[in-house]
């Protein structure tokens, strides 16, 4: 498995967790990029709408019911693997909204233009920060809302601030 050698999920891994075109057209939805059976289960208790299916076993791989998920993003900061993202393909005509967990300081500010990085850490586009969620209840994992060109909504999973700050 490529992922196990490089840490970068392969297209075949992603194909299993990305919602259908049809679902994407309906609005925001969570994507769980967690592909390995590990003894971890906080996500299954995280969703207020019950969209993350109950595990039979703590080692189960999370499964999400895209019809129940409304992309609220509550689950993002409950995942210790930082493996949950929300994508809203209906955000704008040219832009999609991507919500990512981000645990680095300084935090970006609303309106900042940042580098959108893919799963290998390579810059693929520019992104605009539209909101920074960092309430105390999120237990220290802030969520950054990004507006990115639609072509990159399934690519951008991290950011780099411009102006010298590291990561």
């Amino acid at each position: 498995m490529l992922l196990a050698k490089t840490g970068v999920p392969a297209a075949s891994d992603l194909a299993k967790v990305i919602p259908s075109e049809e679902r994407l057209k309906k609005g925001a939805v969570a994507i769980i990029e967690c592909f390995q059976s590990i003894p971890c289960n906080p996500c299954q208790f995280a969703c207020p709408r019950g969209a993350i299916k109950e595990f039979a076993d703590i080692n189960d791989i999370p499964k999400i019911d895209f019809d129940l998920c409304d992309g609220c993003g509550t689950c993002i900061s409950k995942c210790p693997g930082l493996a949950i993202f929300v994508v809203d393909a209906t955000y704008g005509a040219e832009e999609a909204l991507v919500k990512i967990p981000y645990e680095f300081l300084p935090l970006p500010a609303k309106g900042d233009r940042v580098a959108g990085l893919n799963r290998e850490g390579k810059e693929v586009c520019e992104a605009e920060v539209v909101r920074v969620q960092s309430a105390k209840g999120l237990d220290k994992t802030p969520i950054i809302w990004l507006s990115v060109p639609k072509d990159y909504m399934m690519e951008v999973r991290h950011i780099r601030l411009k102006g010298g700050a590291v990561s």
Partner: protein
Amino acid sequence: MKSLRKTELAVIGGGPAGLSSAITAMRQGAEVTLIDRDPVLGGQLIKQTHMFFGSKDQFASIRGIDIPSELIKALEEGPGKVKVELGTTVIGYYDDGVILMEKDNRATTLLPQRIIVATGAAEKMLPFPGNDLPGVYGAGAVQTLMNVYGIKPGKRVLMVGAGNIGLIVSYQLLQAGVEVVAIIEAAPHIGGYLVHASKVRRAGVPIYTSCSIKEAFGRESVEGAVICRLDENWQPLPGTEKTLELDVICLAVGLSPLTELLWQAGCKHKYVPELGGYVPVRNEKMQTSIPYIYVAGDAAGVEEASSAMIEGKLAGLFAAASLGYDHDLESLAATYRKELEELRSGEAGSKIRQGLAKLIGGVSVAS
């Protein structure tokens, strides 16, 4: 001569395993003394600024650093009282059951009726030319520097080892604003959880599997390292050497149980690589080959905090029961065993299951 201090149960080590042992034994009614060489309780957890994995019941998705305070609260809530001795290192064990402790350069003794050893694990070293240069650190030392003292170990780091510790410490280095040049791993696959690997990858850190460090160089301290690729037999492939400029090499190549006290006491050990090397032989009650000595947590086999806590509960439960405090013994034991079993049931737990089968002969995955 001063009369010898006594206690019913001495718990050595105040990490997650020791804390859970002390709480459980206290709740059962035993009189407990908890000893740790550090100035604060919590063991490895006080360095873990990341959110925890594991089951929600075992504090998953709470950050490691926040777990000790919850356990300490339970410890203080009672109903019984646990005597806590911090800054106190247990340095010896005598045949008559007396333990020798050192605090502020003064030796004291204690005579417990039962002992639970929960001393955790020690980091392994890796032999390579230059590994004695300043700038070569163990991952534990790097974590302590950063997360306990707020000191950056350097500017550019090479991480050796892509197990969970190597991946997590790399992430914490990035959070501290330190550049991680690469993570190298001798095995053909990443050993840690892939979600952790993905996390550092998207922050721009390359991970090279089948890759090892050949040497470190530098005049007074580390200035660089030579890495190379390995073939299927883990032998260096000539011509694949690459020189990296960096000032820190961080070794995260594994842990082995810290069981000097158990060796001293004469407990039987067995070599089980899946559990980190030599591990004390024990039964499903966490009891060693010396009946009044119990063991729990990483000292019993390197695993993780969630399992350390449950093993601690089991050790505390059975040590207390052997002192006559056996309230609800069977049902509590069954609950804890089931929790352990679940934790170890998946793919990630298979190594531990294999190790335990070698150690206690496949009795049950939970034992």
